[in-house]
């Protein structure tokens, strides 16, 4: 048990992830500024999801922690996806 809680993530890893997050932010700003209309929305949301995945995996230690946390996070994401899907089935076909 103390093995997982004592895992030390090097500063370098955090630095690299920050760099990646900043690059992704700039890409999403650039993509939405050049008006690709509908695609811009999809790309911006995909980039946001990618950024969240990095924050969850590295900053929030999911990659190094017990599997149970990963399982729970995936479960919550699926619950949200289901609710979003159902809502749009409702509003989309009215």
């Amino acid at each position, binding site marked *: 048990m*103390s093995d997982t809680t004592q895992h*030390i*993530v090097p500063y370098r890893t955090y630095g690299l992830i920050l760099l990646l997050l900043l690059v992704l932010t700039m890409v999403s700003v650039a993509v939405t500024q050049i008006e690709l209309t509908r695609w*811009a929305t999809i790309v911006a*949301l995909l980039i*946001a999801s990618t950024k969240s995945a990095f*924050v969850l995996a590295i900053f929030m230690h999911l990659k190094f922690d017990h599997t149970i946390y990963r399982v729970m996070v995936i479960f919550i994401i699926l619950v949200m996806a289901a609710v*979003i899907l159902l809502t749009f089935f409702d*509003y989309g076909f009215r």
Partner: protein
Amino acid sequence: MSESIAHHDEHRDDEGSKLGIWLFIFTELLFFGGLFITYAVYRHGNTQAFHLAAEQLDVTIGTINTVILLISSMTIAMATTAIQKKDKRTTLVLIGITLLLALVFLVNKYFEWSAKIDHGIWPGSPLLEELGRGDTLFFGLYYFMTGLHALHIIIGMVLIAVILVRVRKDIITSDNFQLLENGGLYWHLVDLIWIFLFPLFYLIT
């Protein structure tokens, strides 16, 4: 790696405490998730008004605040590494930077909101009533969601300040740093929410 946990007589459950903060994070995700769905549904019904309203938000200040939050997320994550390495000074500096960045975020938010209010846009303002339903919905959601997020920033700052004091007083140490890690997890949640707020309100028009 540090030696095994120092005080065996102490009643402590680090894993349970971490599980607790994660469960809290899930309730927060579902809470904001509901708000995002509200936003999506209203956007779906008022496409043109949302498009015009979103163009009035300041992308520059939004981008700056995104960068600030991302950096602060990194510094608080690094603080956990520092305490594990028994480097108290670096831990304090990193937590201090996180607090400072949170404050800068709020100052930016203050200027952003002030500019909007100066232009006659606030919940229930006469101008919004004139502009109609779509704009009222967009700015209502904008003020509510960014305001709720700012409230989370303020709560986070209090939490991080408590952690700062406890690190200084050696209550949080290299073999008892769960509060620091939990505070970090909460702070990353605040960052996660902003990662979605930013494109939805500022970028997508």
